[in-house]
């Protein structure tokens, strides 16, 4: 199959607007031109609060993703990282999977400018730190905010060399602590770190920035997907909220320990997290951003309902060994 016929097959059935969006996106076109490579499009830097908070990301098909209970043909999944800025500082909150590198490069070129760069992550998984090496190699004098575990600066490579060579960042990057319960005051930005309200990985952090009202929730609250690739990845109402059953299924697909478990303490703490903070925006690493107090409240209520329902689901693993 030639690249052209492949492109026509992929584009078949899309709306005219979607095709235009796709064609505008050089990265997507590049991937489409190569048969049988992963598909990513809508590589973009999206101002959530202009001059303060940006979403960096792309969209992929809602298929082959471990956090979904099954492929959702026809839907797309936003992959996200975030950039908080003031006049002098630019703080990355997660840095995304390598497939969204074009958007990260765009953010460095168009938003970061001469600001001092700080990098932080909510988990040490590849969907959060996949572009950490690129950023550290591209932004001089970047500082690592570290609240987890592991010799993270040895987990990444300098983009100046081939991936087959070893050139890590140990000893080359200053480290500032950002452990749970700590606050990093960086210029006008206030980064409040807390243990994740719900999580799969032990060392998952959430971060709240009070001036923006944004809570960065890592792999939680990512249950809103895109119906079309040119849809904006921001949800601003409770319309189209998925059912409790669907949310429970997605939660249990990612947090595989929920099925059959009892976790009243976790539910209570989750409610406390939102009661004690004026959360106006939720920023997950996958799924749509949720914006507006009422919209946030509705989605948190659905999260809580989904968590309660997930407890009643059957553990799939054990059924294999009857």
């Amino acid at each position, binding site marked *: 199959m030639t690249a052209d016929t492949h492109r026509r097959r992929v584009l078949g059935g899309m709306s005219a607007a979607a095709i235009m969006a796709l064609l505008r996106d050089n990265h997507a076109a590049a*991937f489409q031109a190569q*048969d*049988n*490579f*992963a598909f*990513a499009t809508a590589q973009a830097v999206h101002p959530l609060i202009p001059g303060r908070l940006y979403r960096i990301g792309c969209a*992929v098909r809602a298929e*082959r*993703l*471990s*956090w979904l209970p099954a492929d959702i043909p026809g839907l797309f999944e936003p*992959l996200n990282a975030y950039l908080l800025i003031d006049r002098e500082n630019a703080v990355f909150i997660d840095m995304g*999977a*390598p*497939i969204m590198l074009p958007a990260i490069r765009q953010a460095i070129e168009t938003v970061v400018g001469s600001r001092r760069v700080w990098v932080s992550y909510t988990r*040490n*998984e*590849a*969907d959060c730190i*996949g572009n950490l090496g690129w950023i550290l190699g591209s932004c001089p004098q970047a500082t690592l905010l*570290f609240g987890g*575990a*592991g*010799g*993270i*600066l*040895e*987990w*990444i490579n300098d983009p100046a060399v081939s*991936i*087959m060579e*070893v050139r*890590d960042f*140990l*000893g080359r990057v200053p*480290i500032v*602590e950002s*452990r749970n319960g700590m606050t990093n005051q960086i210029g006008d930005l206030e980064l409040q770190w807390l243990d994740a309200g719900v*999580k*799969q*990985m*032990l060392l998952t952090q959430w971060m709240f920035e009070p001036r923006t009202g944004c809570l960065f929730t890592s792999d939680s609250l990512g249950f809103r997907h895109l119906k079309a690739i040119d849809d904006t990845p921001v949800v601003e109402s409770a319309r189209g909220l998925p059912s409790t059953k669907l949310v429970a299924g997605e939660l249990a*697909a*990612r*947090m*595989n*320990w*929920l099925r*059959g*478990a*009892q*976790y009243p303490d*976790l539910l209570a703490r989750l409610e406390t997290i939102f009661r004690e903070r004026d959360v106006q925006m939720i920023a997950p690493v996958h799924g749509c951003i949720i914006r507006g107090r009422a919209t946030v409240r509705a989605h948190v209520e659905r999260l809580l309902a989904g968590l309660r329902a997930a407890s009643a689901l059957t*553990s*799939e*693993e*054990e059924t*294999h*060994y*009857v």
Partner: protein
Amino acid sequence: MSESLAPQRAYIVRGLPRRVLPDLAWLGGCSNSAGWPGPAGKRRPVTHEPCVAYLILGTEKTVMFDTGHFAHWHSLPRQLDEMLQGRTLDYVFVSHQEIPHTGNLGRLLQRYPQAKAVGDVRDYHLFHPELTLSRLVHMRHGEELDLGDRRIVFLDALWKDLSGTMWAYDTKLKLLFGADAFGYIHQDDENICATMLHEMPKDLAERASERAALPFFGLRQRSQSSRVAAFRRLLEKYPVEIITSGHTAPIMGTMTKPIIEKMLARLDSPTEGPRYLQS
């Protein structure tokens, strides 16, 4: 910065690779928690956790269980050359998406252009957009790979770190690769990196395997008894003589049964919570 707080490598290689059996090689090294950034700028205590991979040499094909830690790449190509002895790598089993387990996938598939990744390969296209999708082969529970003189059976993991975790079983060696299960953290001063439990004095083996590495959030929120029972049923169907994992030296010989029972008791005990991370 004082000399004592100078950056220290957290990923070391001692005594590996080892050819455990003619058709089983043990690769990788250990992580050293003293190399991690410590609280308040203080050095963490030294503890080691094996960060390892295994190579199965079938008569027709070869497979690597996990890729080895990304930070061990300075040594892994040499280790592979030494153990493959001119053969190529045909398959890489990816147990789950964590960088310590499968962070070298892109490097391995570049070094061995005919090799394919096998397992639950969801997500990996996001991490390796340079790979054609045909090199990521999705395997479901119970599906098998033929290496010539044996089959590798892919099994849904009963204890998962990340969703998408699979275990693998070698039908000839009766070897189970348990991803994150069966791991343990050991002290450095006992100098036991690259040493199998059955090669140690009994009391040292007991101490070395005392501190389980169980990175499974949610163990305390649910009784593990039904999973322990499911694991016993797995053992009936797939008899195990050798246990391996990404954080385990090969457990074999007289140690296999006691270590399995030790781990199951730890998981099943409501009074003894798992100790799951390095200091």
